């Protein structure tokens, strides 16, 4: 990597310190995963590689960190899969609604061959994908009423991330999509500029959106995973054994990260329930699946092969 200390190609035992950028706080599940990854790498390389985690977005936002990783200034990074779609359109498939049958299937695929193949589509962008981390499933919440089935979404103004696919999903459900910066959502919910938004339990809780938007429908419609990646310039410096060690460490750290995620989700869920949020459980997810069919009609051609491979 481009950081302190020399490489180890001459077989010496010198230590190379690498920087890993993480935009969540130090105790967040992704950061816990990063640290486990760091521990495993150090173990597997007999201390030749030490990884320092820069949590809390100290080294910049995700898109900035990605550019630094492309340059090789940042050796490793943990980012969401959404910004990666600008380097590999294929990775955009992970934003498709109800892409996996269930959690088990999802992680079987992401940790398996398809997952690695999908990460390999980053080739040519100076980035090397190592593994996927969990960030749960996103669901809808609103200020107006308990939403039990897709028909109840009609007419609600829902904040979405600024992307065409995000807009299409919400509109397929009959609601009206409002792209808006995340930081503005709280006051927009409070003042009625929008009626609802969508996110996972931990974000719903830590953003305090539950204070101003009490109806949370547990319909987990989308689950963009996080991605742990390396810069290509680090990658090219690694010996084949070390590459293997990094990959193994990444995949092995997924379990610890997912446990931390499950714990946080449970904590947040209890906290919002205690604060008076009304959780609407969805018994029959198939009507939601059916409702987003227009999205599959529209993006089917673009993501077709990947959809088949991930769903099989």
């Amino acid at each position: 990597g481009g950081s302190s200390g020399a490489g180890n190609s001459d077989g010496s035992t010198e230590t190379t310190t690498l920087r890993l950028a993480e935009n969540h706080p130090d105790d967040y599940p992704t950061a816990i995963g990063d640290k486990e990854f760091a521990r495993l790498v150090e173990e597997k390389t007999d201390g030749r590689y030490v990884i320092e985690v820069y949590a809390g977005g100290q080294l910049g936002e995700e898109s900035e960190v990605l550019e630094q990783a492309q340059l090789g200034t940042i050796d490793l990074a943990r980012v969401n899969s959404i910004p990666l779609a600008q380097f590999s359109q294929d990775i955009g498939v992970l934003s498709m609604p109800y892409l996996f049958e269930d959690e088990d299937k999802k992680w079987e695929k992401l940790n398996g061959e398809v997952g690695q193949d999908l990460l390999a589509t980053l080739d040519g962008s100076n980035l090397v994908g190592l593994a996927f981390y969990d960030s749960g499933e996103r669901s809808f919440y609103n200020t107006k009423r308990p939403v039990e089935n897709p028909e109840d979404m009609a007419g609600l103004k829902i904040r979405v991330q600024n992307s065409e696919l995000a807009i299409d999903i919400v509109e397929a459900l009959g609601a009206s999509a409002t792209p808006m910066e995340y930081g503005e959502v709280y006051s927009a919910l409070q003042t009625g500029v929008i009626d609802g938004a969508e996110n996972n339990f931990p974000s719903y809780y830590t953003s305090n959106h539950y204070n101003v938007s009490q109806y949370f429908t547990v319909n987990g419609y989308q689950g963009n995973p996080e991605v742990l990646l390396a810069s290509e310039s680090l990658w090219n410096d690694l010996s084949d054994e070390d590459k293997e060690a990094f990959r193994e460490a990444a995949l092995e750290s997924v379990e610890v990260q997912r446990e931390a995620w499950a714990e946080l989700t449970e904590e947040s869920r209890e906290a919002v329930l205690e604060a008076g949020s009304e959780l609407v459980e969805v018994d029959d997810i198939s009507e939601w699946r059916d409702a987003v069919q227009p999205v599959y009609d529209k993006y089917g051609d673009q993501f077709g092969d990947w959809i088949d491979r991930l769903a099989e």
Partner: protein
Amino acid sequence: MKTLRLIKLILDRLLLVVSLTLLAVMIVIIIYQVFSRQILNSTPSWSEELSRILFVWVSFLGIAYGFKEKLHIALGLIVNMMPKKVQDIFDYFAKGLVIFLGVIMIYYGWNFTTLMANNVMPGTGLPSSMLYVVMPISGFYVTLYGTALLFKKGMHQEFDDANEE
């Protein structure tokens, strides 16, 4: 010499006209965005990103313009107490650094711009290079004005006529 001066005059004029135009367009875009969000009830996906790009452009062209117009503030506490001749030496040193910065902006700015040619910005779909290409452009002007400063006295504004913060 006369043609050289004419070329510089045109370049000066171009910098100011382009900068002020971009500034004005940026203002209009944001006002349009408010109008669109509040009245038409839909937020265009390109407006915010485009205005940010324009803002970065205005900022970087401003760096160069600031050197030309001696706008960038410095701390004169110690050097101001020295004889004028010695002050000039310090000024030459600072002018050298201006040129150094200009060259860095041209070289590394251009490298980075080409590296970012395949990165797409989500809102407008433009390549990220559109954001970064202002670095070498501004770098060219910084180098030009750094060199021009070598032929002028001083490089700082006097506080008496400062009416900006």
